[in-house]
């Protein structure tokens, strides 16, 4: 059941990184370097990254010096506040558009195709018309994979032959989405390492095709990040922002790891928020990510 799964997933993250903080802090009257060291360990072990960890610790150190706290709850509150500041972004209102075009990008194997299935299922459940575009023409059987998902969810899939031009698929999909009056068009792309110049140029071209075909589109570019990845995710995000102007992050495989802390760095360095989280391999294993609720959850009131 979707609800149970979701709770399980978030709970894992809570128990993983952040409940450790609460445990660490509870009962402390004094903050010494030992405590800060342990805090550092918790952050870094959560893949928050060295830079962002040091940044957070500095902030916390300063606040502690200034604000003199009396009990561990207050210390907890300070840490929570600083983490919140990093995580929470004003929720951007989704633009109204029909079709609302979502372009999904990311490095190899992060979970793009599966995440698209989840998004499609999510919108389908709201009674929307969803169209999928199989613009990963490169990976073996990638088109079949998306087609199987399309069948399971009941969404048509626009596809061409393997190894054909992804730009052409996108072009056709945009035309079809208009003609069929779809509410959503979700475009799958081939995985690409962000360091490959030619592949990133290709992605930029795909974006340009969409822009030129439809005013205001793509309405959302989703970068899919694997929560198991470490600091390389920052490098990934930087390059995908350059090539495709990323709007939001879909953080996958959070059912397997209590980490994924790198999204804190991505948010701090690039300002891109996590919007969706993936918690399994099935179409219902997705959640919209609410940073506020998330942080509240991380630091339960004692």
């Amino acid at each position, binding site marked *: 059941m979707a609800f149970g799964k979701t709770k399980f997933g978030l709970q894992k993250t809570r128990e993983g990184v952040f409940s450790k903080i609460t445990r660490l802090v509870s009962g402390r009257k004094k903050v010494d370097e030992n405590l800060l060291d342990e805090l550092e*360990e918790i952050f*870094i*072990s*959560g*893949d928050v*990254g*060295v830079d962002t960890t040091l940044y957070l610790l500095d902030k916390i150190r300063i606040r502690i010096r200034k604000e003199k706290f009396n009990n561990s709850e207050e210390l907890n509150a300070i840490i929570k506040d600083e983490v919140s500041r990093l995580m929470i972004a004003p929720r951007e209102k989704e633009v109204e558009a029909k079709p609302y075009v979502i372009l999904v990008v990311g*490095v*190899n*194997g*992060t*979970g793009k195709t599966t995440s698209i299935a989840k998004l499609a299922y999510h919108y389908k459940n709201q009674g929307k018309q969803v169209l999928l575009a199989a613009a990963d023409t*490169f*990976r*073996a*059987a*990638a088109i*079949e*994979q998306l*087609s*199987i*998902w399309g069948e399971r969810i009941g969404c048509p899939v626009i596809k061409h032959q*393997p190894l054909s031009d992804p730009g052409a698929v996108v072009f056709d999909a945009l035309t079809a989405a208009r003609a069929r009056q779809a509410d959503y068009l979700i475009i799958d792309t081939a995985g690409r*390492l*962000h*360091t*490959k*110049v030619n592949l990133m140029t290709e992605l930029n071209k795909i974006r340009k095709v969409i822009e030129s075909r439809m005013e205001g589109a793509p309405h959302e570019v989703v970068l899919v990040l*694997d929560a*198991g*990845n*470490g*600091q*390389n*995710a920052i*490098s990934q995000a930087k390059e995908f922002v350059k090539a495709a102007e990323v709007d939001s992050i879909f953080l996958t*495989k959070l*059912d*397997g*790891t*209590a*980490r994924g802390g*790198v999204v804190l760095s991505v948010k701090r360095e690039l300002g891109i928020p996590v919007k969706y989280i993936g918690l399994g*391999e099935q179409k219902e294993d997705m959640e919209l990510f609410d940073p506020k609720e998330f942080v509240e959850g991380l630091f339960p009131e004692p």
Partner: protein
Amino acid sequence: MLEDLTQRLESTFRKLRGYGKLSEKNIEDSMREIRRALLEADVNYTVVKDFVATVQEKALGQEVLQSVTPGQMVVKIVHDELVRLLGSSAMQIRTAGIPPTIVMLAGLQGSGKTTFAAKLANFLRKRGQKPMLVAADVYRPAAIEQLKVLGRSLNIPVYDEGLSDPVKIAFNAVSVARQQFCDTIILDTAGRLHIDQAMMDELVKIKNRIRPHEILFVADGMTGQDAVNTAKEFVQRLNFDGVVLTKMDGDARGGAALSIRAVTGKPIKFMGIGEKLDEVEQFYPDRMASRILGMGDVVTLVEKAQATIDEEKAKKLEQKLRKAEFDLEDFRDQLQQIKKMGSLESLLKMIPGVSRQLKGVTVDDGQLIRVEAIINSMTTEERHNPKILNGSRRKRIASGSGTRVQDVNQLMNQFQQMRKMMKQMKGKSFKGMGMPFGLA
């Protein structure tokens, strides 16, 4: 990133003049930087802690080599220790006394198992084996089709039973392989989380049923801190024999290599360096160490400072060069020297100014590998006397090395040109001559 550690270490040591011995104080200072470099490379926190403690002890009181700074000395000690920990570099797979040899792959979702299965099949066939691929991922949509497409493109048989029981598929595949006279079975399995008990049990069942000769754990080279937990769980359940690190063609520093090695003790046997089916490479601990530290330059510098052993070899080579006796055997030696120093990319980065220009550009290390593969496929006689390389020999070499005849021709042309150039250069110094074959 590349220059960071070097610079930081140098500034740590700036106050320190002269050489002499490393002291407790300056080691402690430098360890902070080393620790940071390792953490930034995604080496697991606990692994870093242990590592730094070990190195700190080892470094204490060591003589600083002449002609290097204490900063460089520390890096060398760290580098050497990393290399030691990272272990050996053989692309070896245990083979069965009576074929077929059974190789089983396992790992998390999306780590690159299916792609590697095809790469390994391709690699083994080049070595004269007759592999068969087996599709036992019945969960991911189109996973079987993916393996079939890859198998078809290589013209290597793929056994599947559709969406039936993976244990049964694996078991049946063994007798099918025997019937088809395939000597190696490569079993592709579904990705699974280490915490998913039911799915982990399935792997154990497969293992117990078919008793693979070799189990490889396929891990994404970009993996973060969790590498330790995942690897631990897989090794406990499966006791795998080796590790494959994929997606190393990107800019991940690959700290997971050290983490996995540290917690499992298993060797890293292969690296995936691209999506294409020939993009697989041997694991080089020394390259990996430089990469994890985020610096190829200082280490090589230090190595050069103490490279008295290789000097002898170099002198001989120079003499040969002058007499234009330089043959393909020597050339291969030279290539191997380069490889010892790191990837072509990191080598280029050692040249001042190039590092910045190189940002965002990927250098084709595949070129080096191709050239070496071509030379490896020649007979000793051919290497000594390239003149005898006629059309049919070239064709044989191309197919043996998995390249095209054009590639062999190109290499031979360039080689002749280089020899000509050497003759003209007689009497001049070879320093700064640069790399032959447009490799640099």
